[in-house]
């Protein structure tokens, strides 16, 4: 009903934030570009939010930017129509402009020194209200309110939760020895440094509650696994055994981590409690067993092993037992990550000498290669499963690239100076 078949049209846009109201916590912000579009983009009109012009314009641009970059909407020019959630839309006019859906809203002082952002979403063809919500916010949080509104619109029209309010973590490398672990909003804005180090930082992973990151830091001249509470900056060493400690993965309940330790020879997967206690070995095959990843039900572990002579992906029960081989095509398949619904697996496959993002349907074992780049690494699913964020290289520089699971929509996040790598997409925020 809302969906209309549209010709695939290439789009390219660099979104720049014009919000002077906001601080810039780290100097090098990510810029985001996107290209491609879904097959059935919904024609959507987002009217200018009513209210004090500076604030409402900023809010409108966040909502429009989020929805447009998703590649699932075609934004209809709204002209200068003054429209808020209280006015009744002229359905016929909007229909003539080609809109299937319309959103209108306003932002105003809420009495306690804060502001209230309200919006309403209309189905133009059925001439009905689809929904609406109000969000209390403050000026520095304006972008967050915009992301919440975009999430609500997205969920109503697409039927699955939006990811505009989620956060991403990634590592920025500057020069030969400046490494920073950054946390930013999903659109690359509002970046903050969680850790600065002169030694490499790799493999960040979010705790399921979104409050902590586990990662591998080389600050002690060897790989050591930390769990870092983001709000306080408190860090716990989870694994610092003799040898290397790497590749942490959270169990879905957030109580345990699968980690890779070399303390007993080779690289073996162990389970450890999130405070570093209760270390238990999981894999037994000689050689390399690494990159563990839990299935969403917490019952299986997917991992990379060279037990068959080349790096391939295997799956075993969370309490050990025989491992089954999962990847077969090609001589190099690594970095398994299971989608939030448990139905597909993103991984990196070497094809025609390039390392490319691939997705396997776990039921049919059908594999689709989603990129044609040469140095894809470290895939991470958005919490709604719609996009996969990877690290890749463009012109010799490390950038992040988000690719829709059907390969149609691509977003690129880069930084003006320095390499960006090791992305980790955070969970939904409450």
């Amino acid at each position: 009903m809302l969906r209309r078949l549209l010709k695939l049209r290439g789009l390219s846009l660099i979104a720049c934030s014009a919000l002077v109201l906001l601080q810039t916590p780290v100097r090098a912000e990510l810029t985001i570009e996107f290209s491609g579009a879904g097959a059935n983009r919904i024609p959507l009109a987002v009217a200018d939010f009513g209210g004090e012009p500076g604030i409402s314009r900023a809010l409108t641009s966040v909502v429009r930017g989020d929805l447009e970059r998703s590649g699932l909407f075609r934004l209809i020019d709204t002209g200068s129509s003054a429209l808020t959630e209280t006015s009744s839309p002229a359905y016929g006019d909007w229909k003539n402009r080609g809109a299937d859906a319309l959103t209108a809203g306003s932002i105003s002082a809420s009495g306690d020194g804060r502001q209230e952002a309200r919006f309403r979403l209309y189905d133009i063809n059925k001439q009905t209200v689809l929904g609406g919500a109000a969000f209390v916010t403050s000026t520095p949080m304006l972008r967050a309110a915009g992301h919440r509104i975009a999430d609500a619109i997205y969920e109503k029209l697409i039927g699955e939760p939006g990811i505009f309010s989620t956060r991403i973590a990634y590592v920025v490398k500057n020069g030969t020895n400046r490494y920073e672990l950054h946390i930013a909003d999903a659109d690359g804005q509002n970046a903050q440094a969680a850790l600065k180090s002169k030694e490499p930082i790799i493999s960040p992973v979010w705790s399921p509650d979104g409050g902590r990151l586990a990662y591998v830091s080389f600050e002690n001249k060897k790989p050591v696994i930390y769990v870092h509470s983001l709000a306080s900056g408190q860090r716990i060493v989870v694994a610092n055994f003799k040898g290397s400690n790497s590749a942490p993965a959270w169990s879905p309940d957030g109580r345990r981590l699968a980690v890779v330790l070399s303390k007993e020879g080779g690289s073996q997967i162990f389970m450890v409690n999130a405070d570093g206690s209760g270390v238990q070995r999981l894999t037994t095959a000689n050689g390399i067993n690494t990159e563990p990843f839990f299935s969403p039900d917490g019952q299986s572990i997917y991992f990379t092993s060279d037990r068959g002579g080349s790096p391939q992906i295997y799956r075993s029960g969370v309490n050990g037992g025989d491992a089954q081989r999962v990847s077969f095509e090609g001589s190099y398949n690594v970095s398994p990550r299971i989608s939030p619904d448990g139905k597909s697996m993103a991984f990196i496959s070497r094809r025609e000498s390039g390392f490319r993002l691939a997705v396997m349907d776990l039921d049919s074992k059908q594999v689709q290669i989603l990129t044609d780049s040469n140095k894809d690494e470290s895939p991470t699913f958005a919490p709604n499963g719609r996009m996969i964020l990877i690290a890749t290289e463009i012109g010799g520089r490390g950038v992040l690239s988000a690719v829709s699971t059907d390969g149609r929509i691509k977003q690129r996040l880069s930084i003006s100076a320095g390499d960006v790598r090791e992305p980790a997409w955070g969970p939904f925020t409450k």
Partner: protein
Amino acid sequence: MKRLIIPALFALLLAACSSTPDGPEQGGAPVETRGGGASSSVATVTAGGIDSRKLPPELTDPKNILSKRSIYFDYDKYDVKPEYKDLVTAHAKFLANNRQFKMLIQGNTDDRGSREYNLALGQKRADAIKKMLNLLGAREEQVESVSLGEEKPKNEGQNEAAWAENRRGDMLYNGEF
């Protein structure tokens, strides 16, 4: 198991010289209507390093074989080539005669492929050197083999010569790491 807690105080001290905001207000996520949620502000931590010590001259004299620390590997190979036998033997002997010394072997790889898989490959190389040192007289507790994977390339180039330089194990004594 070692446990280390870096006090939040440290982060607060550093916040003054970093460009990170110190108030909870600048964070991204929470809008109240959808429930509280955790604060999204992030405290910045700066990672410290290790102190270094002086080494005896025999380990640093360029004329002494002990000043050489690197062992190079062939592509996709993890065995120590015969040409390095004298070098490993010399270090094993030094460790056997100087039990107060400890050694860290850092394995390295070129940068093609997965970072974590490369970390495991570098571990294989470091383990091979350690095994040989132990066989030749170094005590188990004197030698630790770890991997830096592809993270610390000696040569950042993208060609066979650069990759060959990065397929390497380095033997470091306490004070050097």
